[in-house]
């Protein structure tokens, strides 16, 4: 069982959350010429890192906020959690 510290509600069990994937992916900007490759990278291509991974989770059965979680994909250790709009320095 993972325990995730929601920045709004505090420490909660994994069962209350749903996963949202890689949080480092940025949507191509609006009103700009966008190549197929850029769309590809946004929609499909993922690094799927082994080790420290910044990812989105939603506190679905709680405050329903989207949050960012920094987690190790090999050990499942959670280093830090952030609000969705917080900038995370690498």
């Amino acid at each position: 069982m993972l325990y995730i510290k929601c920045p709004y509600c505090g420490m909660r069990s994994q069962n209350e959350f749903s996963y949202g994937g890689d949080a480092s992916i940025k949507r191509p900007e609006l009103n700009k010429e966008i190549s197929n490759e850029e769309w590809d990278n946004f929609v499909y291509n993922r690094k799927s890192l082994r080790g420290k991974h910044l990812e989105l989770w939603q506190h679905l059965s709680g405050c329903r906020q989207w949050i960012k979680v920094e987690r190790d994909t090999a050990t499942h250790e959670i280093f830090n959690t952030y609000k969705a709009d917080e900038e995370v320095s690498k």
Partner: protein
Amino acid sequence: MQKYSIFNLVKNAFSNHENWDLAWKDPTPKEEYDVVIIGGGGHGLATAYYLAKEHNITKVAIIEKGWIGGGNVGRNTTIIRSNYMHDENALFSEFGMDLWRKMSQDLNYNVMFSPRGIINLAHSDAQMNAYARRGNSMRLNGIDAILLNREQVREIIPMADFSENVRFPIFGGLMQPSAGTARHDAVAWGYARQADSMGVDIIQNCEVTGFDVIAGKINGIRTSRGNIKTKKVGLCVAGSTNILAEKLNMTLPIETHLLQACVSEPVKPILDRVVTFGAGHFYISQSDKGEMVMGGDLDGYNSYAQRGNLPTLQHVLTEGIAMMPFLSKLKMLRTWGGIMDMSMDGSPIIDKTHIDGLYLNCGWCYGGFKATPASGWTFAHTIAQDRVHELNAGYSLNRFSTGHLIDEKGLGTKTWIS
């Protein structure tokens, strides 16, 4: 190579079975190979075997970080089927079914292929319609499919829950009688033994640390046991695909996720089919030892852990008990996990890449084991001829940018959507 036969078995009995040849050697890596296959799992071993057998390319090395058969080929639920709707998947898998039927003779190794049939249960009228459609598509592609009503399903699997007041009543099901199971380790060992006998070097405990790419062409690989020169490299590394892709500066439409399976204590024969639950994701069969072999959903978040988490296991087994209540009386014997190369449309990739001499075989999601022979056969063709075979033409890497997705069930990495 010593043939495995009743005569050799009797002959070796006189010397207490102490004089059998090793099934495969333990060679040190040579300086150069015509083809290097990275990954000594089912697909890698099968690829090497078909390179030697179908294309006479025997200067081949299989580079395996751990030991052969220690990854997903030894961790799956051994289900073999071709009950797909889309042509790409159906024709590819049915070609594989043919290889499965001949495999024990072909490899001179008993892979215990057991075509016991698979039943996908339906729990609503809409699902029955969808299954009728899929069954018709299968039959058009020459695959056997039978649509069963509730009573017909009850005759075959009376131990399922047919009571009136259940949340997901069984309306019927779609059966592929020729589907089944096989002994998964034997598949890896059988391919390894034959490949080795034709001159393939199976190099275990050897990790790939990098690639030599010169002017867009593969020139060799770097490993923990020295550099190896080669013009052709095939990647068959399932859940480790992204790790090697990073060394090649490639980003792929693949995420690595964890899939669990488990077995109960062994019990007397009760279930002689493979059965899947249609209102969730759960599949079950009974092994020859009597264990109920079960599996279901991904853990749901990127993982390289190779071991699972309890919430998903609980969820999966809840579905199992809803479908077959007797399971609640059984004790769990073992649970384990493997890391899956989940592609974004749920279908695999067997293709060339933008690097000359680098070939990609990945994205097997939930269905890698049953694809072992067809994957090896088509991948060997792709590598040997430097072009894809028509059977794997649909499994292209660029289908994601061109929009030619094969969304059989739409079950890729995003399980939270389904």
